[in-house]
C-alpha cells in the first residue's frame, strides 16, 4: 500500500470582522493510491475547506496556519500559484465543486466549458474535440447530448449542471479526483450509474477519489476507507466496514446510528443533541466535549490525538 496524498496537521483559519474562524484545526489522513476515500462530518465542519486546501483554491481571507499536504512526495503548500496551475490542477488533481452554479461559467456554452478541460491534456482538431466532448457527456448519461452542446448553464436543470461539471472534471483524466457532494442533485438511478463510472475509472486508470458527502449510503456503496471530521479535526480514520459495524468515536457512533434502520415517520429520525460549535470560539480540548455523553474532565482541557486502535483504524478520543 502506498499513499498518494498525505495530509498532516493541516490548520486553516479565516479572518473575518467578527474574529478568526478556526475552520481546520489539525486535519490528518492519508489516501491510498487507487482507493476511494470518504470524508464525512457535520455541515460546516471543514470538508470543503479541506478539499479546496489541497488544490490551494481557498478564499482570500484564508490563512494556512500550518501543516503539510504531501502529494507524490511534494508538499503542495510550498508550491506557487503558477506551479499549482501548471503542474497540479486538472490533469493531476481535479475537483468537482459542491456548488455546480459557481464553477460553470454562465457565458460559455457547455461545449466550450468541457473543451477547456480536454485541451489541458490533448491537442486535437475542432471536430475531434467535439467528439470527445460528446463522449464525455454521454458517460454521465445526459439526454440529447448534441442538443446540449450549444446550451448555457442556466438552461439546464440542477442535476444536468451537476453532470456537466462531473463530465468536465472527468475529462481532465485526473489521478486524484476530489468529489465534493457530487450527486446531491441527481436521482438515485443516475447516481448509481455515476458511481459505476467512477468504479470503472478506478479499475482502468487506478484513479483515486476523495469523496466528500453526507450520504452514508453512498459511502457504504463505494468507499474503501473513511475519515470522520468534527469541527475542523479528524476524529476517526477507519476502514468502511468497521465504520458501519463498529464506529468507535462517540461522534461517529451517533452519526452512523442516526441513519441505520428504516424510517417511516419523522419522529423516528434521531438527531445528535446539542448544537454545532462556533468556530470563532471553539470548545477547548476535544471540540465534541459539550455534546458528548462520555466526556470527562480531561476532555475539556486536552486535545485528544489520533491513536491506533486496530488495523488501519485510528481514533481521537480520551475514552478509547
Amino acid at each position: 500500500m502506498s499513499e498518494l496524498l498525505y495530509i498532516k496537521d493541516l490548520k486553516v483559519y479565516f479572518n473575518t470582522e467578527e474574529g478568526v474562524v478556526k475552520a481546520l484545526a489539525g486535519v490528518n489522513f492519508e489516501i491510498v493510491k487507487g482507493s476511494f476515500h470518504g470524508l464525512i462530518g457535520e455541515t460546516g465542519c471543514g470538508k470543503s475547506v479541506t478539499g479546496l486546501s489541497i488544490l490551494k483554491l481557498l478564499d482570500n481571507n484564508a490563512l494556512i496556519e500550518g501543516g503539510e499536504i504531501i502529494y507524490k512526495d511534494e508538499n503542495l503548500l510550498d508550491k506557487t500559484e503558477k506551479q499549482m496551475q501548471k503542474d497540479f490542477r486538472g490533469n493531476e488533481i481535479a475537483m468537482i465543486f459542491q456548488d455546480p452554479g459557481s464553477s460553470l461559467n454562465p457565458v460559455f456554452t457547455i461545449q466550450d466549458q468541457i473543451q477547456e478541460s480536454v485541451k489541458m491534456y490533448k491537442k486535437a482538431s475542432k471536430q475531434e474535440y467535439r467528439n470527445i466532448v460528446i463522449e464525455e457527456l454521454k458517460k454521465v448519461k445526459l439526454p440529447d447530448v448534441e442538443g446540449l452542446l450549444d446550451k448555457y448553464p442556466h438552461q439546464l436543470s440542477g442535476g444536468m449542471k451537476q453532470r456537466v461539471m462531473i463530465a468536465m472534471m472527468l475529462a481532465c483524466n485526473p489521478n486524484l479526483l476530489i468529489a465534493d457532494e457530487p450527486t446531491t442533485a441527481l436521482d438515485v438511478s443516475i447516481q448509481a450509474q455515476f458511481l459505476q463510472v467512477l468504479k470503472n475509472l478506478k479499475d482502468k486508470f487506478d484513479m483515486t477519489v476523495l469523496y466528500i458527502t453526507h450520504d452514508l449510503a453512498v459511502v457504504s456503496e463505494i468507499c474503501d476507507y473513511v475519515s470522520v471530521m468534527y469541527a475542523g479535526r479528524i476524529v476517526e480514520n477507519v476502514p468502511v466496514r468497521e465504520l458501519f459495524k463498529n464506529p468507535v468515536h462517540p461522534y461517529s457512533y451517533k452519526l452512523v446510528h442516526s441513519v441505520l434502520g428504516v424510517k417511516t415517520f419523522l419522529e423516528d429520525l434521531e438527531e445528535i443533541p446539542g448544537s454545532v460549535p462556533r468556530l470563532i470560539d471553539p470548545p477547548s480540548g476535544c471540540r465534541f466535549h459539550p455534546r458528548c455523553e462520555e466526556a470527562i474532565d480531561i476532555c475539556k482541557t486536552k486535545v485528544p490525538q489520533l491513536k491506533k486502535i486496530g488495523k488501519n483504524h485510528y481514533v481521537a478520543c480520551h475514552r478509547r
Partner: protein
Amino acid sequence: MANTIIETKDLKKYFDTLKGPCKAVNKVNLRIKQGETFGLVGESGCGKSTLVRTILKLIEPTSGQIFLDGVDITDYKKKKLMALRKKMSLVFQDPHSSLNPRMTVFDTLSRPLKIHNLTKNNEETMIEITKLLKLMGMQPEHMIRFPHELSGGQKQRIGIARALAVKPELIFLDEPTSALDVSVQTKILKLLNKTKKIRDLTYFYISHDINLIRVVSDRIGVMYLGQIVEIGEVDLIYNNPIHPYTKGLFASVPEPDPDKKIKGEPLSGEVPSPVNPPMGCSFAPRCPFVEPKCREEKPKLKLLSDGRRVACHKDNLR
C-alpha cells in the same frame, strides 16, 4: 375535506430551443390540499423545478391555468404578483446561485422583511433575523458573511430562513436539505414540521432523497419527462409502486450497509429528450414491460381502487 390551495389545469411550460420547443412541463394537472405535505420525485431533468417555478409565476406558463385558493392567477402581473410572494415562497434548489454574492446574510434576510413591511424598524429586523438564524442552528456571526464565506449547508439554511421569513401559507422546498448532514437535516425537517402545525402551512417538497420524501409527505407524485405518471398516498406507493418508472426508481435506492450493494438494476437505456418526447408512453423506450400499444398511445392517469392514479397501459402490474 380540506380545501384545495393550489390547482393546475393542463399546465404547460415549453422552452424555445434551436431544435424546437423543450417540453419541460407537459400538461400537468395537480391539486394540492390546504395543510398537506406533498412530495414530488422524478428523474433529474424531468421538469420538477420548472413546474414549481411556473406555479409560483417566476416564469410564464406556455398554456394551462393555475389556481390559488380557487382564484385563477395565471395572468397575474406585477402588483398582484407581489401579494402572491407573501403567500407562497420557494426554497431554491441551488443555494449558491439563489443567493446574491454581494449581499450579506443580513441583507438577504432583511429584504423580504422590509418589502412586506413585516418589521417596523432596524431593531425589529435584527431581532427577527437573529431568531431565524438560531432556528436554523446558525450563529449571529454568520449575519455579516457573504455567501462564499459559508459552507454549502449554511447557505442552504439561509435559503430556508429566507422562505420562512415572510410567513407564507404555502412553501415550495426544492431539495431543501441536500447539503445537510443527517442530524442537522433531521433538526430542520422537524422544525419545518412544527412550524407547519403551528401556522397551518402547506408544503410542497421536491427531493431525490426517497427516504426523506417518505418521512415528510402525506401524498407523493412521480414525474417523468414533464408529466405525472403516478400520484397518491405515500405509503401506498412506497409499499407497492405500480408504474414501471416508479418501480425502477425505488429499486436503485442505496442502503447504508457496506455488505448490501444496490439491489435493483439502475434504470437503463437512454433518457429521451423533452424536445422530442416519444409519441406513446414517454417511458416506453426504457420500460421492461413495454408492449406495442405503449409506443402508439399515450396512457392517461387512471384512478385505481386504492385512490392513487397511474398512467400506464398495463393492468397486470397492480
